[in-house]
């Protein structure tokens, strides 16, 4: 008997869950799978939308599945269909086309929707964005953005969080005059401290992006732009709203499931009804920040183990969040307790602030482990620190080297004179020839490089020590 699993939502979480289930049950012996997707087209990779807006990636490359994917994997895929209600007693889902679907297990992967701030003129009466206003959330939004704004036209981005800045960077890269309006005093305040936020604004400013910080939008005037709370205005042919998202919980709430900010789930990703699960942006798990792909995919993997029976002990315990800004030319990583201040007595906090070079590096260490970090303009240091964080590796004692990475040059001493080398220094690695051996050979009459090579074999391997041997021969000729 196969188990009927129905997934409501064909976004990044729902599509991944289907992939994970079919990886464990390729022929559908254990699970028959139905997916209900509201958007008319195949699932796509939301993470890549900023590359589409930036114009470096063709929209068709962001599809997660081919057209024939569902058929090839024995999946009943119903796109362009919206689930309108659940009957938990009958274990059915009703769709907007009047049909119903039975389930043994139901998975809600309904995602989230953009939040439009209560700014006059921004939304129509039905709550949808006004003409000239676009959320940055879907592939259709990308089309709208690319269609609405002529190259070079002014664009305002409402919201200086992660996604807003990625959109702003992409639009600036296409030649738009971009102004970011952010009601808080510094950018990405959820992830950054004020110092980092200011260096970030400066770095993005050098890429042609303007900022209005610490002031919100008061009114949208179509064809003109935004009036701000401080009385100033921002010209814009297009307003891109990226002011946060809200979990899509209506279906769950109406069905009487426990809902807080999202649909509440436990470590087995069960809602308050054990036959119904929720994953991704619509779910609220204690160890998880919503709005990111990695938690959704980890949840999909755990849930696939559970619904296929591949590993009934699988549990989701939350995700360590590392924030990376995907904005060409700006390398920003933030993780953990990044807001802890330098003076904090309970932690070891290192911080380097070099705004002129677009660099801000902060490291919070507790009990020798990385507790938090912000790395702006130090990508290699960031990559190493994230490894220490994820793997629980003790932070190396040379904290400055950790903080700066390549920016702290390796063995930065200037090339030394042959005279300063110890006799034991290996000059030719390929033939284990030391400086002492070269000196001895020189004194015995081998006074140029070919003769030194003939006697000691130095330079006869990879040849990279030729300059060094030449230098030693010259130094010996001068001093003898």
């Amino acid at each position, binding site marked *: 008997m196969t188990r009927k699993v129905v997934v409501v939502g064909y976004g990044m979480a729902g599509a991944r869950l289907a992939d994970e289930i079919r990886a464990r049950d390729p022929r559908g012996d254990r699970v028959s799978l139905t997916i209900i997707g509201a958007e008319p087209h195949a699932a796509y990779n939301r993470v890549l939308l900023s590359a589409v807006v930036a114009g470096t*990636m063709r929209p068709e490359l962001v599809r997660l599945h*081919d057209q024939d994917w569902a058929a090839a994997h024995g999946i009943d895929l119903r796109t362009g269909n919206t689930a309108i209600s659940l009957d938990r007693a009958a274990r059915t889902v009703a769709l907007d086309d009047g049909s119903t679907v039975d389930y043994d297990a139901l998975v809600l992967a309904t995602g989230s929707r953009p939040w439009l701030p209560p700014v006059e003129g921004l939304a129509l009466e039905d709550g949808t964005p006004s003409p000239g206003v676009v959320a940055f959330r879907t592939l259709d939004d990308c089309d709208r953005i690319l269609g609405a704004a002529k190259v070079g036209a002014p664009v305002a981005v409402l919201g200086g969080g992660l996604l807003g800045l990625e959109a702003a960077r992409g639009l600036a890269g296409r030649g738009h005059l971009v102004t970011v309006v952010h009601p808080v005093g510094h950018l990405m305040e959820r992830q950054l401290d004020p110092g980092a936020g200011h260096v970030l604004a400066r770095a993005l400013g050098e890429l042609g992006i303007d900022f209005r910080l610490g002031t919100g939008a008061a009114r949208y005037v179509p064809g003109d732009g935004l009036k701000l709370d401080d009385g100033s205005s921002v010209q814009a042919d297009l307003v891109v709203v990226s002011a946060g998202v809200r979990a899509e919980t209506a279906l769950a709430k109406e069905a009487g499931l426990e809902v807080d900010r999202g649909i509440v789930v436990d470590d087995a990703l069960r809602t308050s009804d054990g036959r119904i699960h929720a994953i991704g942006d619509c779910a609220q798990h204690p160890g998880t920040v919503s709005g990111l792909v990695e938690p959704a995919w980890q949840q999909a993997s755990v849930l696939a183990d559970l619904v296929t029976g591949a590993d009934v002990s699988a549990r989701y315990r939350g995700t360590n969040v590392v924030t990376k800004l995907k904005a060409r030319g700006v390398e920003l990583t933030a993780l953990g307790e990044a807001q802890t201040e330098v003076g904090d007595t309970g932690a070891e906090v290192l911080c380097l602030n070099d705004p002129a070079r677009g660099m801000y590096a902060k490291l919070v260490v507790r009990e020798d482990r990385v507790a938090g970090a912000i790395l702006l303009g130090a990508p290699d240091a960031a990559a190493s620190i994230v490894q220490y964080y994820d793997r629980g590796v003790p932070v190396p004692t040379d904290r400055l080297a950790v903080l700066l990475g390549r920016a702290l040059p390796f063995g930065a001493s200037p090339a030394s004179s042959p005279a300063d080398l110890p006799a034991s220094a290996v000059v030719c690695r390929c033939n284990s020839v030391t400086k002492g051996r070269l000196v001895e050979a020189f004194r015995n009459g081998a006074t140029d490089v070919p003769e030194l090579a003939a006697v000691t074999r130095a330079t006869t391997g*990879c040849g990279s020590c030729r300059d060094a041997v030449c230098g030693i021969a010259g130094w010996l000729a001068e001093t003898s």
Partner: protein
Amino acid sequence: MTLAAKPQVKVDTHCPYCALQCGMSVSGTTVAPRDFPTNGGGLCQKGWTSGSLLTSPARLTTPLIRVDGELVPSSWADALDLIVRRITEIQARHGKDGVAVFGGGGLTNEKAYLLGKFARVALGTSQVDYNGRFCMSSAAAAGTRAFGLDRGLPFPLTDLAAADAVLLIGANPAETMPPFMQHLSRAIDTGALIVADPRRTPTAERACLHLAPAPGTDLALALGILHAVVADGLLNESYVDERTAGFAELWRVAARWWPERVERITGVAAADQRLAASLLANAKNAYILTARGTEQHASGSDTVSAWINLALALGLPGRAGSGYGCLTGQGNGQGGREHGQKADQLPGYRKIDDPAAREHVAGVWGVPAASLPGAGRSAYELLDALGTEDGPHALLVFGSNVVVSAPNSAHIAERLSTLDLLVVADLVPSETAALAHVVLPVTQWAEEDGTITNLEGRVLLRRRATKAPAGVRTDLEVLNGLATRLGQPDERFPSDAETVFTELRAAAKGGPADYSGISYDRLRSGEALYWPVPAEDHPGTPRMFLDGFAHPDGRARFVPVEHRGPAEAVDAEFPLQATTGRVLQHYQSGAQTRLVAELNEVVPEAYVEVNPDTAERFGLAEGDWARVSSRRGEAVARVRAVASMRPDVVFLPFHFPGAQRANLFTNPALDPSSRMPEFKVCAVRLEKHSDSGADEVRGIR
């Protein structure tokens, strides 16, 4: 044993060690470099000192037979008679597959060929494989999958000299084949030598961009760089359309591996992945080259496929001046995988389960095709099965030192000890020979003729330059002696190398690695012959795939591979990852190079490279003896504190015997398609070894 005092003739030949096969000339026992395209007149310390092994007092010069637990000298006739008597008994009891053969990637083409024939025809066993399984098999599997045919470098090495950008992955040629580095000087000068290696090796120090992925995460890194190529608009779309198949399926996987996500897995900054993508894409001529560091994993063939996918996305393979290649390791690692000592192959790189191939080869051998056995066990599986109920009870080893070189080596030594017959043919008393029932002393490179196929697929003639010590026979003579005693006609197992090669040509004719147009005369005249050479008047094939790939439709294949990570995860008990590799002064198991005083003085013992912080955390200081243990076993090694090491990774060279064997702890998890063991990463812990010092440690054999 002294050599007869004869006028010494200078003979042009090639180095006995790695696949670069540097040109050298030998006069008596004196070696000097000569100008040859691969080495340009260079030699490393191993090559320079290779002559000293010819007169080493440690040479084996008489057969040895184990009597009452001791190896004692014997005559050749007694030794060979004994072997054949035991083989006959064992096969009578356990069937033909009760006897197994294990070869090596250092054997000449002639030896590899005759060894495979000996196994299939004289012994009738399917149980034959070789140490190249531990070396080239992942690259070979992936190359065949992508291009339809595998030749390490499908272009002359000297082509690299015109490259603007080169990406080396898991390759450390500055130590493993130093004269190779001269071919990278242009890429170094143009600022586009990229080296991917968890360690800051001497090769990585020469790089303009060093990518240091966590061990076992190379596949993710390849996906990330490929993703960056596509996302940044650098995909070579016309090449992908015209010369490849399967990009869409691959992209469905690679689309999920954006550089920021890959950074989290690998520790390689997304910015560096993008930089690598743009350096390669913007170069006029670019190459991607892999080696053991990325191949010796339980996901090794998929990892190589991932790098080939990147090369295809950039449009490199099959284009003059660009390409993908694998740097073959052992001296005849290329030819050794083509001529039938591999469990699933027949000469000419043919498949043993292909009826037409069986028919052809059986015809050359003068036996019915039905008499040829099928595919046998792969190297580790073969060793693991020794002495078990279904496994072989006798093993004949040629050109390999499995006690040191196989993973999980204590277990392998234990399997060997259960054998009814272990025969080892070697020139030196290797650690495996020390366990044998019969040891056969054989000639080495300068004492015999034979061909080698170097890392470029160029066939080279190594000529006899000096006389072998009295009492020593060639491997071909050994096979002849055994085969005739087993009832084979004398002419079926010739002991003259050129005669064997002539037969090899016929057997390889029409196969993927077609040697039929190569003759000793052509090689003696100095012709540069790269296989395939399908006719005597064919000039050979220096550059493959220029007109099309070897699949029926002429297109290369993208293979949709997914990142898996190391087979063994770290945990509280084994919190570090160990990786293994080579040092400049030693070769493979070290059986030869450890006997060369000049080399052994430089690196006399095993060491473990550890980040100084990590060393301190485990109570270790520079120069201490440390125990490196995994779930399988432990090795002892001298601590070297190296600041550039990742704090969660240690490195050990694998050339040392006894208690210093790195392979005591390595993981025999196998790649599903190549059967390559996971030498390059496993979970370990570090402890301080007792203070009793080096002598005790060295004494454990």
